[in-house]
């Protein structure tokens, strides 16, 4: 009997409306753990290389992890995956909230959607049943309005809904999927894949959550964690200030991305830090399913700015991308920008960084007022930022170009605009300055989904010997601090260890804010939780191997699409001196960065010349089938 998961994967053919259920065996779940592991497995095995990401052949997969929905803190997450229309790589993005646990309670671990519906539909999952229903009446509606209408139509006030908004319908290449108005599978444009399939939403309602192997132990561990909230200062900072609390520290440390990553310091940071947020817009702390950390922020309605407040408050990434990185200090406008993004299903990181790209193009004379529909996109202009977000959602005027992302827009603008596009593999950088966080720079370059920040350790957290975050890595043999700006072998080793842990969590459905370095909560304690939920004798070694397997599968998918070491690069800007703040003048060293890349591949057991896993490594990870899969696609491994 499966514990923690349902054992059921739902197949939905949107073209003919048929559904069927598969039941993979226990070994499959233990090898891939669900989430991004499960999704990448199916994408590699069943999808031919080279499919159009916005065509009907692109499989779209929603996958919970084995731990998703366990009655334990920070375990609400699920993945959405497909070939990304933004990058052409594997697209994979996780969200917390409530949808993942409800999907499992409705009877399914994962949903694999193929084809394209002839007209807009939504998928309704209820206690083991699946039904495609007409969505024409909600097509064009914002996320919240569509969800309200669907709940009313079904008479299901407690249904949990993952949906796209107009951005996804309009195939904006960085459209996202949003559940419960506030939780986004943000990166990679997976909302556009949903839109390309005429799929508005997946609605889940269930009453039979999978049982845990040892419910008593699960209860005790949940109580132990609740006790951590008061006693553990790192958990408490997340509870008290959420991710917006990061602004002050990043500004003080000189690593707050500002003016399209020119500077690490924003002169008006005090207008957008947590103190300002708390005074001006904060209403209350909220959380995800069964999570006592409650790092999410609710905000008051703001009629003057047209902000309803129903989409929650901006997270740090949104604050950074729509604020300092565009040199905008109007917090209420940033909150409104957040609402435009969440209500329409737009990734705020890519949207903000594409707007800061346009601002730099404008200020350097590469685009004119006439090109921008009469707008003058200058740094610091909140009104223009909000207008551009609206235009991107509707693909109107200049918004049609920006909806393609900064890399494609730069190609179209030409005349060297590429140097202003802060992107890797076509996806815009999250709000972390690589010159002050070189391991984050390394991980950003290596990320298989394009620039991303969720599988990378934050360099400053491992500098002090007394650091609670450093201590969480002792079970993995990281015993000594590593200097912040170091990118030598010890930093690469730290990164190597952590990417396995984080990729495991992407598979298992665990929020990285719950355990390990981010909050200083023991990873061994997490392993105890995994054993209590699954009944498997899970070890830290096994968890790391699962993470490494997910990483290798993602890289294999990308190899078939022509990606390799040549694509593991950072924008040139990061090899030039940072212009402002405490780390002004610091730059990444090109030689040191290339050495770190080579060493990372070698530590992974990959070929440093190609940046691809070797056949031996794939065998060691117990996925030798990937070698044949790649050979059939014309990719030879060493």
């Amino acid at each position, binding site marked *: 009997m499966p514990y923690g998961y349902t054992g059921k994967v739902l197949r939905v053919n949107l073209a003919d409306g048929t559904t069927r259920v598969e039941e993979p065996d226990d070994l499959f779940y233990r090898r891939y753990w669900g989430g991004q592991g499960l999704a990448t497995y199916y994408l590699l095995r069943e999808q031919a290389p080279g499919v159009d990401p916005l065509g009907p052949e692109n499989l779209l997969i929603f996958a919970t992890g084995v731990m998703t929905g366990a009655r334990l803190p920070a375990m609400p997450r699920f993945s959405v995956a497909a070939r990304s229309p933004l990058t052409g790589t594997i697209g994979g993005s996780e969200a917390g909230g409530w949808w993942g646990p409800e999907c499992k309670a409705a009877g399914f671990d994962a949903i694999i959607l193929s084809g394209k519906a002839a007209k807009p539909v939504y998928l309704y999952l209820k206690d083991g049943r699946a039904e495609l229903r007409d969505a024409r009446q909600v097509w064009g509606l914002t996320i919240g309005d569509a969800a309200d209408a669907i709940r009313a139509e079904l008479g299901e006030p407690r249904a949990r809904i993952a949906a796209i908004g107009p951005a996804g319908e309009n195939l904006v290449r960085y459209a996202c999927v949003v559940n419960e108005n506030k939780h986004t599978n943000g990166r990679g444009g997976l909302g556009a894949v949903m839109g390309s399939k005429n799929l508005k939403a997946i609605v889940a309602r269930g009453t039979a959550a999978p049982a845990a192997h040892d419910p008593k132990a699960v209860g005790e561990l949940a109580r132990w964690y609740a006790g951590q909230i008061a006693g553990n*200062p*790192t958990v408490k*900072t997340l509870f008290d200030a959420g*991710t917006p609390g*990061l602004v*002050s*520290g*990043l500004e*003080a*440390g000189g*690593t707050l991305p500002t003016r399209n990553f020119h500077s690490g310091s924003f002169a008006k940071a005090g207008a957008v830090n947590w103190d300002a947020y708390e005074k001006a817009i904060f209403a209350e702390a909220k959380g995800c399913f069964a999570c006592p950390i409650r790092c999410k922020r609710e905000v008051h309605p703001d009629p003057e700015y047209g902000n309803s407040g129903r989409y929650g408050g901006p*997270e*740090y*990434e949104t604050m*950074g991308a729509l604020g300092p990185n565009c040199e905008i200090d109007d917090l209420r406008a940033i909150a409104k920008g957040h609402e435009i993004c969440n209500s329409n299903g737009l990734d705020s990181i890519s949207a903000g960084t594409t707007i800061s790209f346009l601002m730099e193009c404008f200020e350097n004379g590469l685009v004119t007022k006439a090109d921008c529909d009469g707008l003058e996109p200058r740094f610091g202009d909140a009104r223009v930022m909000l207008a551009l977000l609206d235009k991107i959602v509707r693909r109107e005027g200049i918004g049609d170009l920006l909806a393609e992302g900064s890399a494609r827009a730069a190609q179209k603008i030409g005349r060297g605009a590429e140097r202003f596009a802060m992107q890797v593999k076509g996806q815009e950088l*999250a*709000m*972390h300055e690589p010159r002050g966080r070189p391991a984050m720079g390394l991980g950003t370059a290596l990320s298989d989904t394009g620039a991303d*920040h969720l599988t990378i*350790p*934050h360099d*400053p*957290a491992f*500098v*002090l*010997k*007394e*650091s*609670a*975050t450093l201590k969480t890595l002792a079970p993995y043999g990281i015993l000594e*601090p590593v*200097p*912040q700006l170091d990118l030598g072998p010890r930093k690469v080793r730290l990164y190597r260890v952590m990417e396995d842990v984080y990729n495991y969590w992407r598979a298992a459905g665990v929020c*990285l*804010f719950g355990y390990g*370095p*981010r909050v200083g909560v023991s990873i061994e304690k997490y392993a105890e939780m995994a054993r209590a939920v699954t009944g498997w004798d899970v070890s830290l070694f096994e968890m790391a191997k699962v993470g490494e397997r997910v990483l290798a599968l993602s890289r294999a998918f990308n190899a078939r699409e022509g990606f390799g070491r040549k694509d593991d690069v950072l924008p040139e800007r990061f090899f030039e001196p940072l212009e402002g703040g*405490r780390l002004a003048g610091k730059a990444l060293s090109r030689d040191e960065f290339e050495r770190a890349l080579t060493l990372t591949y070698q530590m992974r057991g990959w070929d440093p010349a190609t940046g691809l896993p070797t056949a031996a490594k794939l065998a060691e990870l117990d996925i030798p089938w990937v070698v044949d899969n790649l050979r059939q696609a014309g990719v030879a491994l060493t």
Partner: protein
Amino acid sequence: MALALDGPATAGELLRRAGLPPSLLELVALNGDNVQLDAPVADGDLLEAFPLVGGG
């Protein structure tokens, strides 16, 4: 804030005196360079402390 030194002191001792427990800190810098908490501090030195800012 200015703290008077009445003898040899380390960065960690001074930060505790300033009400900044190490568990809440991520980086400590002395005259601009990152240091450990046992670094000796002299009269006139600039000691900076940065809060936990990992993750996002």
